[in-house]
């Protein structure tokens, strides 16, 4: 009773303090508007940014002198030749040949065989359709390149990541060391990875493989370790009691029992890799990202849509196939079925071999035929819709855009970016400490200091305003849809598959429809961010609400609660930690897309990162922007994690 009282008092004191901070902040911001905002012109560089530019130039001109760079370059060129060899086999004609070594028929046959072996024949049939779409949409070569870079990166990630995950799973000390690194890797928006990578490796296919491998690293390590740790301790003890060595336990008990979980990690890794490969087009990675980015930059919605649809199809296909493969492991088949399956696979392999052979003989089977051409109608149709929307749709979209811009975005921007820097910084630290606890407060101080040090304060606050609006909309959406889904089974049945699918599509594909609807405004990036972030947040809220014990709900209903009382007094309070986690994930997802939004005329840090790629004199500024985004993301991650921890029923770390 007293404990509950104390907790309640602490809660209301915290609420009062937050309200106080907000009032002081708003009043002072109003009074001091426009002073000491640290806004600088685009070409004005801070010392840090000039220094980065210098480093970048030095690395660009003279790389031979430095031993570390020679190693990096060696690695890069080795990977580069692996990629070009693979391309020569499957996608791009090598020197001296008009077509790749294996023609399209051979590639499709190999793909179908592999998918059939790991995921069953139904998915093999679907694979024919998916690869057919690659070709008939006119992006055969780009699609195969995307798959090649993805798989090479995933291979590297798994070879390094699974052993590290195993080690983490059995050693608490390794966990302590590795976890913070993984945290930062997973908090950093994908786009931010690219600039430092170009600093070390330059641009091209090899750096694309490396950055993808790094980006996809965290999920597999984490999930593998989690799989190892969640092995039934009773089984482990029984195994220890017969005198097993650590190694025997790891290989004979933990690894086989964690296999399914590890395969979930492999699936997550593949999806993360695909999303990074598409963005890596910024550093000249071959693949489907290239047409999307080129088209987005010239505001060619039709082309961006066509290539974007292929990315989405590829993502959904990869996700389903790898999920299916994971679910089939450990399947016990009868001996006769095993024999039939083996015979079928051998037959399939022979057929694939024949297909490869013929695809090397006949040009029609080597180069994907130009007809039927489905790409042009899709492109023209999408463009026509986009044109119609921009001509007529503005009746709807303009008011929406303006309402959000004047009602939410501008006030927030005034509060965050147009008030004195020390006021905003102080308010952020105070809020960080109040919401997330003192540790989060310390993190906030450090992150604010970093943003100030790299000399990019004003732009960072402009970005934060966008991200904050995006996150608010996301959380609102998550609460409404999540609670609805949790209370209505039929809605859940319809909505959940849509959310699952939406979650697998790489984020910057969402920029295409957003651009078509809202043009090149700040709002476009926010819309894309919300669409990308909403599925995960909705699912978290829904699962949290559904996790409330049915007996509690029954008791509340028996006491005569109305539906609204049930939701506001029982379900949401009891699912508080899930809501906090939804806010955490939603915010991180929003950050990662708001940054990419710089591509279509957003403002703030995202624009600077994009500019950093195209103009060498802005490289330093772009990198500084990347650092600032990461600092913002970490600050808000810690803040919301602290909130999750505080509200979690068991008081354990979630996520």
């Amino acid at each position: 009773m007293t404990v509950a009282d104390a907790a309640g008092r602490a809660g209301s004191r915290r609420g009062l303090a937050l309200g106080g901070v907000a009032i002081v902040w708003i009043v002072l911001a109003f009074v001091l508007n426009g002073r000491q905002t640290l806004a600088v012109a685009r070409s004005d560089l801070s010392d840090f940014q000039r220094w980065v530019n210098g480093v970048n130039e030095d690395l660009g001109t003279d790389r031979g002198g430095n031993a570390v760079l020679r190693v990096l370059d060696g690695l890069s060129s080795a990977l580069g030749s692996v990629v070009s060899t693979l391309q020569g086999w499957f996608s791009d004609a090598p020197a001296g040949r008009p077509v790749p070594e294996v023609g399209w028929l051979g590639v499709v046959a190999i793909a179908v065989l592999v998918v059939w072996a790991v995921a069953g024949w139904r998915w093999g049939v679907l694979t024919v359709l998916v690869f057919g779409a690659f070709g008939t949409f006119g992006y055969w070569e780009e699609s195969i390149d995307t798959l090649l870079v993805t798989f090479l990166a995933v291979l590297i990630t798994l070879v390094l990541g699974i052993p590290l995950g195993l080690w983490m799973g059995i050693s608490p000390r390794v966990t302590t060391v590795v976890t913070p690194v993984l945290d930062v890797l997973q908090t950093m928006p994908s786009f931010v990875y690219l600039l430092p990578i170009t600093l070390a490796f330059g641009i091209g296919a090899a750096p694309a493989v490396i950055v993808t491998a790094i980006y996809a690293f965290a999920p597999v390590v984490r999930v593998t370790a989690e799989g190892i740790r969640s092995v039934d301790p009773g089984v482990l003890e029984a195994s220890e009691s017969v005198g097993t060595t650590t190694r025997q336990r790891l290989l004979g008990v933990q690894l086989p029992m964690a296999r399914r979980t590890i395969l979930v990690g492999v699936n997550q890794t593949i999806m993360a890799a695909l999303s990074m490969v598409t963005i890596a087009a910024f550093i000249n990675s071959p693949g489907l990202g290239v047409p999307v980015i080129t088209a987005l930059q010239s505001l060619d919605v039709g082309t961006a849509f066509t290539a974007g649809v292929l990315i989405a199809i590829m993502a959904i296909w990869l996700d389903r196939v790898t999920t299916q493969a994971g679910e089939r492991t450990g399947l016990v088949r009868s001996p006769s079925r095993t024999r039939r399956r083996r015979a079928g696979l051998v037959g399939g392999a022979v057929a694939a071999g024949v297909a490869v052979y013929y695809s090397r003989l006949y040009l029609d089977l080597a180069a994907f035929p130009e007809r039927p051409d489905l790409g042009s109608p899709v492109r023209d149709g999408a463009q026509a819709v986009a044109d119609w929307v921009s001509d007529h749709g503005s009746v709807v979209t303009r008011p929406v855009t303006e309402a959000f811009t004047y009602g939410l975005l501008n006030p927030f921007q005034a509060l965050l970016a147009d008030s004195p820097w020390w006021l905003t910084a102080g308010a952020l630290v105070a809020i960080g400490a109040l919401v997330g606890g003192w540790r989060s407060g310390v993190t906030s101080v450090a992150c604010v200091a970093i943003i100030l040090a790299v000399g990019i304060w004003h732009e960072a606050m402009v970005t934060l305003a966008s991200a904050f609006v995006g996150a608010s909309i996301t959380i609102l959406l998550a609460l409404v849809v999540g609670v609805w889904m949790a209370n209505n089974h039929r809605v859940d049945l319809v909505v959940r598959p849509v959310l699952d699918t939406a979650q697998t599509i790489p984020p910057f594909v969402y920029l295409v429809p957003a651009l078509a609807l809202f043009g090149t405004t700040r709002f476009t990036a926010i819309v894309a961010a919300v669409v990308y972030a909403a599925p995960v947040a909705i699912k978290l809220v829904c699962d949290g609400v559904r996790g409330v014990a049915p007996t509690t709900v029954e008791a509340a209903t028996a006491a005569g609660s109305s539906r609204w009382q049930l939701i506001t007094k029982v379900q949401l309070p009891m699912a508080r930690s899930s809501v906090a986690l939804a806010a955490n994930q939603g915010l991180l997802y929003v950050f990662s897309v708001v940054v990419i939004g710089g591509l279509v005329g957003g403002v703030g840090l995202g624009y600077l990162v994009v500019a950093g790629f195209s103009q060498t004199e802005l490289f330093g500024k772009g990198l500084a922007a990347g650092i600032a985004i990461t600092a913002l993301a970490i600050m808000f991650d810690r803040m919301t994690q602290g909130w999750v921890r505080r509200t979690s029923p068991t008081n354990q770390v979630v996520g």
Partner: protein
Amino acid sequence: MTEPDQSTADGSPALRVDHLWKVFGPRADRIPGSPEGELSRAELRERTGCTAAVKDVSFEVEQGEVFVIMGLSGSGKSTLVRCLTRLIEPTAGEVSIGGQDVAALSTSDLRDLRREQVSMVFQHFGLLPHRRVVDNIAYGLEVRGEKKSERLARAQEVVDLVGLGGYESAYPDQLSGGMQQRVGLGRALAGDPSILLFDEPFSALDPLIRRDMQQEVVRLHREMSKTMVFITHDLNEALKLGDRILIMRDGEAVQVGTPDEVVGAPADDYVRDFVSEVPKSHVLTLRWVMRPPTSDDVLDGPALPVGTIVQDAARTVLRADRPVRVLDGDELVGVVTEDEILRVIVAEEDVA
């Protein structure tokens, strides 16, 4: 079960536990032997933040004996049995198995001890879900490096021994709980250990299956006469299986004795309360109910050995028209009449 014949074997106990302690918490090693060690559990926790799961326990188990450790949940019995092979490291005290000091063993010697000499059966079975029954049973042989053909042959023998014939190729999740525990039992037996440890092996099973499995243990003990240490919270199970019983409470040993000693002469109110529901006539022997002969007694009636269980003696005593003589060997140690028998059977009175 028969009384353990303490004079056989080479005189050395199979297992000896001497002043064993297990304390969980910060700087746990300072507690044993210190004044804090005398405190009750709650006080110790209050003052030091430590919990004494096992508190200064000593006992010996003879070769071939079935030794039952009994207590309620939280009494420290499961921690105690894990300390025997250092699945949990003891805080203080000594464990010796077959004359070896377990605490002094190196990691690899300890592994050999677990591989060759001591096996354990667990409450929740601890089976490997991705291996067939026969591979689970052969697991211990596999980790000690036996050839595949040999270990499968041995595992097949054990499959038949524990009554799993026909289920060799099944996976654990295809079996009922009782069958799964037979696999656990088989795994423990496959390595032909000299000591078997059972940690509440039948608590998770239905009552009827539990009774079958208890019979199974009795049978296996009769056939193989292995030393067994059996943990349970079920007093009836303890009385049924145990040659001797150690009763634990809050980490301390309260009483050690044969079933009839525990029921006939409970060491304190805790044990008395514990055994109060036991049908005494099923456990007590004539030693506990006889009275000294008086000059009035006619001493030419039937005779019974002093170790006869009351229930078994009832028919003879009630039919006789004079006191029944109770003999220890050839010596007359007392007499019993209808009165004594009926007091136990009908009134269920305390004898102590």
